[in-house]
């Protein structure tokens, strides 16, 4: 057990961060706050991948000429995460654009307010 705590605590820390983000997304009413939560959630997932890539005693995967014995961290998750960051930003941008429009159309960005207004509309 203690071995796994030592070996896995990094992942667990990432998971705790991730869940904080997910909590903000699901629990908060303010639409901008939700986007912030989404950001935290996505960054934590990136951390998860990057943690997988780490090799103890390894270095960044930038090849050194002539050195055969250097231990590199895994480059593939890094590649994937570069894409994931971009996806996250595109999502954030679109979400915020929607939030701005919702503010214009409803005069509020609080979810329970929106529900109330729509209900009043019938």
């Amino acid at each position, binding site marked *: 057990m203690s071995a796994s705590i030592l070996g896995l605590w990094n992942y667990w820390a990432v998971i705790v961060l991730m869940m904080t983000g997910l909590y903000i997304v699901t629990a908060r009413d303010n639409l901008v706050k939700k986007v912030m939560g989404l950001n935290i959630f996505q960054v934590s997932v990136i951390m998860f991948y990057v943690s997988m890539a780490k090799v103890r005693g390894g270095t960044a995967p930038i090849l050194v000429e002539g050195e055969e014995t250097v231990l590199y961290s895994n480059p*593939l998750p890094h590649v994937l995460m570069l894409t994931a960051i971009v996806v996250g930003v595109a*999502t954030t941008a679109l979400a915020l654009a929607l939030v701005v429009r919702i503010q214009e159309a409803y005069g509020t960005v609080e979810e329970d307010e929106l529900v109330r207004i729509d209900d009043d509309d019938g």
Partner: protein
Amino acid sequence: MSEHLPILQVVVPLLAGPLCLLLRHRLLVRGLATAVPLACLTIAGLLLHRVQQVGAISYHIGGWAPPLGIEYRIDLANAYVMVIVSAIAAVVMPFLPGHMGSAMVRRREHLFYAIFLLALAGLLGISATGDMFNAFVFLEIASLASYSLVALGRHRRALVAAYSYLIIGTIGGTFFLLGIGLMYQMTGTLNMVDLAHRLPEPMSPGTPGSRTVLVAFAFLAVGLSIKLAVFPLHQWLPRAYAHAPSAVSAFLAATSTKVSYYLLVRVVFSLFGAAYVFDALKLDRLLLPLSIVAMFAGSTAAIFQTDLKRLLAYSSVAQIGYMTLGVSLASVTGLTGGLVHLFNHALMKGGLFLAAACYGMRLRSSRIADLAGAGRLMPWTTAAFVTGGLALIGVPGTAGFVSKWYLVLAALEQGRWLVAVLVVASSLLAVAYVWRVVEVAYFADRDAGAHPIKEVPPLLLVPTWILIGATVYFGLRTELTAGVAEAAAGVLWESLR
């Protein structure tokens, strides 16, 4: 040329999107946007034909062999899905300018088409790819495009619907990404074929083996279930489909959930394998009740809707239940039923939403009560709606019957007669919600003060009737649907593991 068909299938719409922005001119853009789905349909048809002749095609993108590079892997299952997706895209195209005209400033039309084509490219990309991370990228393209399209609805509620769709969709996408990560962690690969070989075998029936693999599967399944709107993760769907522009609802309802379903089936059968998912995990014990609840809850909710598009959307929740039921029956016949229903439901729900779009154009409303008198004033649209409704019910001679046939047969083959009865019983609820509309359309009179309405132009009737006609045709001739679906189910069942 022909060996590059798999990549062309996706790259053509993918590059046509940005091209719309460069062209800008309305007619040019419309021409391009009309031509591209037709080209995609041609390619998909050719691919399906090829796959039927020679079996699965593997295409190495950039010439890098998998698992190093990204592979496109076309077999019967995804060729079939791509045919549906591009056909629907081609058919809904005439609805886009007509329908959007009122809601959008004309200058923005090229943006709209760009997004639409990219949504198509995303959906085709998910279907074509044999690489999990690549699937994620295209899933996000398709999703982002869908969120934007939904936001263009006429009512301000469309914005809220799009926002909540975005939030829940992104959570789903991120779950999917986590699942990929866990799977990658255990195997070191992203390629589907490679994954299927390297995922650890379950120890023995009843023990799921590696806990990481188990959780990976759970996250993939949940993520995709969100995108697919499996009960109880469906709440985003009725809102999104009800408030999106009708043509967009037609497109999304007929393609987006279908592609998610395909990917789910691919993950369940090709990656993890039926032995793992059903023998070791007993997923059917969870999915089967959920599917049945979805069938009943969705249809019941549909009965009580006052808005036509919401009614159709809730009906989609129920119909997705039929599709997942096909998976959970855990047999080739069941999977055939699910895949056939994927095709048939795309046709009928697409056709029904197009009919709703026709109504929307003339009535400027989607309230059911406003359909009064439509049976006489818009006879062709209403006839299309009724035929589509009959297909939803599963009346023999329509495509819906074929789906139901396979699902009930699969249930009875396993001696689950209760499931069989529930499947047929749930179609009675479909009778109820379809008939609510029929009665209003045919037996109620339009208010004297209401604005006059007339039939929509042929440009819109023809695509609607292509889909509705197809539901009848494929209710009688099933070589192309049930035949291919059965073969595809066989391929998936046998596949890779």
